[in-house]
């Protein structure tokens, strides 16, 4: 019989993803393509010339080695430091939890440049660390402008993300697992190592590889903390493209960096059997996704696992013998110290902002409000205004495009559409930002978008769109499709279903996406540094300039303002949440009375 049903076929919302897909294609993929093109098509070194020269250049090889070693080390440290903090956050409630969260999240929401600034202050020859060393009778140590400083900077940059990835995963682990292990005779440490840790392994893996990949693509940290001694790929790309005008080298280095990052990610997915989405968007990682690799691994390894006694297991047993692990509060204590260490550098900005002189000395030898006054001059207010404007416009656009795309992909009529567009829309999260910045620089130069607000907005939409998309997508996934079916059965057209049902239900996600994309755009430094010029400069680019050209305590002022902004935001959020909870409780009681 003839198939005559096609026109009534309920269409998916796939078309809603189209604007975002188009946008990413034109504004992100195309520039990346141009970057790739520029690495092989250029006047000076056509073909693979730039690559062969770079790979034969001992300088570049050192940069590559630095990149690999420093990011690997930082990733390991990040996980080691982040885990106890995440564990404590996951296990605690109330004020303590909020405190730890604030310690870790405040830096996350403050510009990487401000963190770098804080670390410069912290590690300088006259900085706190060295003053502590001399106070206990040790020699001053050379802590700044070397690999050590870079590692400190990278770890400090990536710890928040590690913690944010780990907390929900640790929270998903059934605590009765530990109790069961204890009841079966394992000490606290042994139970932890043999029962608890394996359950969090997928999260640890994702956190590790995220820290690794982000570190490898880092630009501001090595540029400002490493001196020439610890140059990394990111700073190399910046130097080549933005400073030396050597686009061929910069493009080739970007391609090599991207390939390396991709290789790490592919290797990671092969080794751990986790989806690439989990890495770039841990928010999408469901319990099922977390548990599958664990089960699979158990199946693959089979009985070998049960008979082999791991080194860590033995170590844990020794720890239990020593009874150290029985001490109550040992993990929270460690976590508190570590969390404070993460927060501390930010706080230094407060006295610095009142320094009497320009040179960065801590504690300042005199105090003044000149930098606060300076903050409110055009030189700083103009970039601030640009940042706010660019942030607002790009967050609104990115959220609109991202959330619509989330509905489109989440409710795509065909599976193929979803399978293709989901990773495609996450592309901007896969490539190091410095590579994207180079790509934007090269292609925007051609169309006159450098040094324009439109250029900033386009670039920022491209890199924040995936965030809005992820948040929206998680929201869409959580919405029962029956709501849409119900609306349809009740006579609502697709447009009305979107307006009356889906968008209101995604209200929370829309707000979250607006907030996150705004903060990201407002904080974004790498692209800003590449695209800024005489007409348009964002605040992070202004900060970078202040740090790269000469020290300037006004940076401290911006840091304080940042922190104030974030704190007010966080407190407002908490108050809002509490209010909502109270309303919920009230209705709950009403319901109880009604029943």
């Amino acid at each position, binding site marked *: 019989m003839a198939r005559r049903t096609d*026109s009534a076929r309920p269409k998916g*919302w796939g*078309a*809603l993803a189209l*604007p975002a897909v188009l946008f990413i294609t034109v504004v992100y993929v195309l520039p990346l393509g141009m970057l790739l093109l520029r690495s092989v098509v250029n006047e000076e070194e056509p073909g693979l010339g730039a690559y062969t020269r770079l790979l034969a*250049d*001992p*300088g*570049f*090889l*050192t*940069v590559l080695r630095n990149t690999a070693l420093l990011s690997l080390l930082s990733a390991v440290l990040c996980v080691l430091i982040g885990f106890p903090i995440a564990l404590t956050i996951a296990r605690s409630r109330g004020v303590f939890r909020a405190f730890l969260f604030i310690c870790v999240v405040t830096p996350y929401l403050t510009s990487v440049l401000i963190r770098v600034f804080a670390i*410069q202050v912290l590690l*300088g*020859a006259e*900085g706190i660390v060295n003053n502590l060393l001399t106070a206990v009778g040790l020699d001053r140590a050379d802590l*700044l*402008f*070397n690999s050590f400083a870079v590692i400190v900077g990278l770890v400090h940059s990536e710890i928040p993300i590690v913690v944010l990835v780990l907390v929900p995963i640790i929270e998903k682990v059934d605590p009765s697992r530990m109790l069961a292990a204890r009841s079966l005779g394992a000490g606290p440490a042994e139970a932890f190592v043999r029962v608890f840790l394996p359950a969090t392994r997928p999260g640890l893996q994702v956190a590790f590889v995220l820290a690794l990949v982000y570190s490898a693509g880092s630009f501001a940290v090595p540029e400002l903390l490493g*001196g*020439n*001694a610890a*140059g990394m790929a990111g700073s*190399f790309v910046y*130097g080549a493209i933005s*400073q*030396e*005008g050597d686009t061929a080298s910069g493009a080739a280095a970007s391609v090599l960096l991207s390939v390396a990052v991709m290789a790490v990610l592919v290797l990671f997915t092969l080794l751990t059997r986790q989806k690439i989405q989990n890495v770039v968007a841990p928010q999408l990682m469901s319990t099922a996704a977390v548990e599958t690799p664990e089960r699979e691994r158990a199946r693959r390894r089979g009985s070998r696992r049960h008979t082999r006694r791991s080194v860590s297991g033995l170590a844990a047993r020794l720890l239990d013998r020593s009874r150290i692990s029985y001490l109550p509060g040992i993990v929270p204590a460690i976590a508190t110290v570590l969390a404070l260490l993460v927060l501390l550098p930010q706080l230094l900005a407060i006295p610095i902002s009142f320094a009497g*002189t*320009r*040179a*960065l*000395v801590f504690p300042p*030898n*005199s105090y003044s409000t000149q930098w606060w006054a300076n903050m409110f001059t055009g030189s700083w207010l103009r970039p601030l205004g640009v940042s706010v*404007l*660019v942030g607002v*416009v790009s967050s*609104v*656009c990115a959220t609109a495009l991202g959330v*619509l795309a989330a509905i489109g992909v989440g409710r795509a009529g065909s599976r193929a559409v979803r399978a293709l567009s989901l990773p495609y829309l996450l592309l901007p999260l896969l490539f190091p930002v410095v590579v994207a910045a180079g790509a934007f620089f090269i292609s925007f130069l051609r169309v*006159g978008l*450098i*040094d324009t*607000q*439109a250029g900033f*907005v386009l670039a920022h*939409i491209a890199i924040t769109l995936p965030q809005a998309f992820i948040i929206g997508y998680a929201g869409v996934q959580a919405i029962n499709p029956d709501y849409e079916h119900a609306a349809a059965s009740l006579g609502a*057209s*697709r*447009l009305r279903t*979107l307006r009356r049902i889906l968008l209101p239900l995604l209200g929370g996600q829309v707000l979250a996406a607006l907030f996150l994309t705004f903060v990201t755009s407002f904080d974004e430094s790498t692209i800003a540094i590449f695209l800024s*010029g*005489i*007409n348009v400069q964002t605040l992070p680019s202004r900060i970078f300039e202040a*740090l*790269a*050209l*000469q*020290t300037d305590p006004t940076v401290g002022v911006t840091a304080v303002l940042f922190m104030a902004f974030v704190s007010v935001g966080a407190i407002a959020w908490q108050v809002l949440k509490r209010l909502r909870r109270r309303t919920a409780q009230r209705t709950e009681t009403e319901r109880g009375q009604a029943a």
Partner: protein
Amino acid sequence: MSMTTALRRPRTSLIAAATALACGLTLAGCGSDGGAGGGDTLWYSGFGGTYELSVKKALFDPYAAEAGVEVKIDKNGSNVTQLNEIIKSGRQSPDVVDTETATLAQFMSKQMLQPLDKSKLNVTDVADQSLINEFSVPWYQFSRNLYWNTKSFPNGGPTTWAEVWDVSKFPGKRSFPDRPIGTLEVALLASGVPKDKLYPLDVDRAFQWLDKIKADSIFINQADTAIGQGNVVTGLYTLGRLLDLQKGGAAIDYNWAGAPVSVQSLTISKNAANPAKALEVIQRSLSAESQQAILDSLRYTPTVTSVLDKLTPEQRADLPGTEETNKDSFYVDGTWWAQHYDEVVKRWQSWLNA
């Protein structure tokens, strides 16, 4: 297609179109007022920091107020390659570019500058007329100097570059600029080359000597933090910045031994939108009050007799490019650098990263 779908289809695309429109409108609203435009703006390419503040105050602010021109400032004055890219691509380039000896020579050899219209420029006050050429008039002289940390070396720091290279006698990290101009020269001085035999530079020898000290040095553009906090104890740094740091309380001192001296000039780049205004600025930079202001704020040596003649011998003894300091310092040879910069800088970058 049935009526129902015909009515339904466009709605989805309507949303798409609305989104696109919204984005487009906001972008348009942002305004792409790219370029510094013509008429009422002047684009100056300098170096940022306190230098920028001083130059603004001494020159651009009074000029802007008087001429009713908005001055836009970037920090890429020393970025020859970038400016060259801009000019090659035919895009608008800065009106006024701040150059030192070596960059001026490069700009000239790459034909990135416009000749100055001497008929409209009064240069009679310039002391050393031999420094005037087709593209530039000298503005001031400045130097990079040998500095040391007085806390680290309370009995006196290194007095010569050879001593800077002596790590056992003066332990601690050194700092040098992250570009080769001036740095290769002091390495050669340290190796024993007399200052009048520096050019043509023996590049191999220079790198050989730089190798000796590389492990004990950082090469960094912005050394304020490192010097101010005592992370580095000696090295080569711009005089103006050293003075700034001293003012800020940093325990440092400097001398004139083997200090590379440069002549600074304001020039007009090839694709400048506003060369007439640029010329006005250059004229103004030669005024006595502007030169005096530079001298007061940055302590760089004026080039016009009206200000030079008022200098006391004590003042001259601590200024770059004066008879008194020229005994110890040397002039950077712009012509040599113009010929060799591109090739040296490649080797330099690779050496630096390795």
